[in-house]
């Protein structure tokens, strides 16, 4: 237990370092001090250094937890998502090493922070490893796939920078609308985290019992105030709230969480847009993104894909097939997770061919990078939590 307690502390320390690093990157980019004498280069250097220290702390977390649980800690959603956040940091450290660009840090580090915070919403309880997962391929397949995804995520950060830089905020355009949608989606993730913490603190959930399609009695344990319940559900404990009854084939527990996350996201968004910033969120970020030359932003997102995709294919498809053959006796079974890994690959393959063969650079390429990251997150969150399959551990 010692190891695990310490590992959690190390993760928290890593989180703090990442957060401070993000702040320093912000100072480095925007020069927040009014006298205008900010030494940007130095701030960027310190920010990078802090990111490295944060990474070292997280690595310590990883190996401590490994020592504590007795297997590579990438076996459930908490462990995997944390690791994915760490791999995003690795991706950032590598790409920053090449380009030394502070703006990238300003956008990549918050995304990594968000991912790690999101991870901590899942149960961090030490769970025994089921026989199917008990294999050396767990570490080989999962770590390589996560590394690939982490590097690919940098192309999202950099694609976003390109789009923020390039999109005119003065006139209505598709890019402007979708950028705002992207911002709102990120707010919803933040909303989920904050709403979960809030309701955990005040404990305003409840338990309902109902008869499912197969005639069995099932119960849902709500951690958030109940908005939706299955048909004919009976409240066992907690407050009933709105309690709208929906058909049984809809999982109202998950819908409840989703709706609360959107509500949380909407509150944050409205506050930012109409109270704090008084303009579009994208518009507020634009001056920061303008500090990078478009060519560089475009190039970074291309390089991240060029480096990350082979790693992802190796880990997420080839190693995955080898392990699936050993554990499930078929290398490919059209499990949703497998299919979405294939879709991830095909999306980036599409990106590369469009770029190299058909000259899609700039805006359209940047949108493909944003979409690619959306698919990666979809595969991580949605496929695990909503679409049932062989990979839905946790």
């Amino acid at each position, binding site marked *: 237990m010692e190891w695990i307690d310490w590992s959690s502390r190390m993760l928290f320390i890593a989180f703090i370092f990442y957060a401070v690093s993000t702040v320093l990157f912000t100072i480095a980019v925007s020069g927040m001090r009014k006298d205008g004498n900010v030494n940007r280069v130095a701030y960027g250097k310190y920010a990078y250094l802090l990111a490295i220290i944060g990474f070292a702390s997280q690595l310590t977390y990883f190996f401590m937890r490994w020592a*504590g649980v007795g297997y590579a800690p990438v076996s459930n959603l908490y462990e995997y998502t944390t690791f994915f956040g760490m791999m995003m940091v690795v991706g950032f450290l590598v790409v920053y090493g090449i380009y030394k660009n502070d703006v990238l840090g300003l956008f990549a580090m918050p995304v990594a922070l968000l991912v790690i915070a999101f991870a901590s919403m899942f149960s961090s*309880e030490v769970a*025994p490893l089921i026989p199917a997962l008990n294999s050396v391929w767990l570490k080989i397949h999962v770590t390589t796939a996560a590394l690939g995804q982490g590097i690919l995520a940098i192309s999202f950060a950099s694609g976003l920078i390109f789009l923020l830089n390039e*999109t005119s905020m003065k006139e209505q*355009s598709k890019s402007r609308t979708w950028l705002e949608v992207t911002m709102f989606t990120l707010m919803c993730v933040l909303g989920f985290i904050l709403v979960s913490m809030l309701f955990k603190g005040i404990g305003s959930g409840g338990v309902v019992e109902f008869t499912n399609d197969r005639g069995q009695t099932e119960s849902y344990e709500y951690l958030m105030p109940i908005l939706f319940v299955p048909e004919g559900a009976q409240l066992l404990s907690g407050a009933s709230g709105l309690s709208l009854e929906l058909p049984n084939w809809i999982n109202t527990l998950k819908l409840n969480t989703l709706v609360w996350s959107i509500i949380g996201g909407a509150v944050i968004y409205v506050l930012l847009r109409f109270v704090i910033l008084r303009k579009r969120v994208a518009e507020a970020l634009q001056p920061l993104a303008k500090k990078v030359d478009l060519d560089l932003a475009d190039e970074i997102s291309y390089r991240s894909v060029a480096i990350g995709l082979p790693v992802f294919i190796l880990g997420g498809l080839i190693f995955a097939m080898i392990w699936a053959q050993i554990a499930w006796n078929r290398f490919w079974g059209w499990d*949703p997770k497998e299919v979405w890994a294939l*879709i991830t690959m095909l999306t980036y393959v599409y990106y590369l061919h469009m770029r190299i063969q058909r*000259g899609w650079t700039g805006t359209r390429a940047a949108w493909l990078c944003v979409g690619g990251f959306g698919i990666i997150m979809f595969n991580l969150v949605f496929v695990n939590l909503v679409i049932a399959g062989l990979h839905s551990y946790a």
Partner: protein
Amino acid sequence: MLDMKYDGADIRSKRRPKSWIDRVWSFFASVKVGLWLIGLIIVGSAIGTIFPQEMYIPQQLPPSQYYAQEYGTPGTIYYSLGFHNLYTSWWYITLIVMLTLSLIVASIDRLVPLYKALKHQPVRRTERFMKGQRLIGQGPGTEAQIDELESALKKKRYRVTRDGDALLAEKHRFGRWGPYVNHLGLVIFFIGAMLRVFPAFHTDTLEWVREGDTVSLEATDGEYYLRNDQFILEMYDPENNEEDAKFAAAIEKAGAVPKNYETELTLFKKVGTNEDGSPQLEQVTSGSTKVNHPFTFDKYEVYQEQYSSRPEFLAMSFTIADQESGDTYGPFTVDLENPETTYDLDGVEVTLKDLYPDFQVKDGQPDTKSPRALNPAFFFNVTSPEGETESNLIGIRLNVADEDNRYKVQFAGTEMASTSGLRVKSDSTYPILIIGGTIFMIGIIMGMYWPHRRVWVRKGEGTDVLVSGFTNKNPSSLRREVSPLLEKTGLPIWEDQAKFESKPDDDTQHERGES
């Protein structure tokens, strides 16, 4: 700018098509078509994950009912469109086949001219050619400076060739073959995957083997036999196992968690037939198969796939207690699969009148739920040496007998057996898949990590020197690598002809051709 995709060489399919063959060919050779196919495959694949595919749904219900019951109207629509078997549907396979054809045709169409163009490339290029590159510089310079650049480029591991004052430096040309190598790998992989559709290329059977039983393996055409020596189901045990203690909280919440499924087995080969028709077996080897560690022999693999959650009873033993004298008779054993009906125990005769392997009471009568010995019950008649007969119905936690019976039937022991579900497989397409996958990965790494870079220098009009550069991947990297060398030698610095222009209040979309 010049179209440098195939080094300015003539792409076969771009010539004006003459016959219908050429037209079909150029259709499949088109990148646009290939990308459309990829897009359609992405969409199709995604649809298949909305609801589970037929192979993943529980078997108790027919699929037609399952989708409707579980997912309502959307489920019914999903089922009626055939999306429950999407990945083997004719249209999905057709998309894959067309993509394969597109890969083959596009690769042939481009590889040949590209190969020829790169094999015979002149060192001295025309001014028009050089000015058509993305990276181009022009300015005063001398031949001495070009010589200096030559040695600087050589230090950067460029292969340099000279033609008088003209210079060609080249690096990583083999990276140019990466896409073709990975396409080849993919095609080989697809061939392997498609061969698997035919039963001749793989065998795959699930064998349910009870402990102690020996079965003929259908997948081997009866050549091999397998005996289940023991099935092992190990659970995490936080109370008794120190290593597992840390999982106590999780197990308390989620219930018992299995640690290991394993079948210890012995392999036999059929060497002949005995006179009574039974096979003559010779032991080959023994071993075990567990999850993640299949047992292999010959070209076959045995996977621990399933087990029956309730072990079956093989035999049960009983004793008879004479409650008058205090004597005990027996024990005697009833073989559940092939029971004897009478047992003579020193004068006391026991007759097995009926045997219910999976006992239940139905309509007030003893009955059986299934033919499997999961919960056996026995109907015995016990006859004393004096010829008096008493009846007993005995089962697990069940003993129906007359209060004042003289003889009492008691359990003396059980023999149970678990059943393993073993998947026996062989697949002759594995080598093809492995070769295809490896070639594919090599091609990707070649193509993505080794960008082809070239630098041309020549004298132009007067004292002018032209410097131009080409790369198939990332022009900025080439610029960063070679610009310092140009600067050092004093040759004209090249510029990127296709830079994005950042205009704060301009909403035009930035696109540029990457030639």
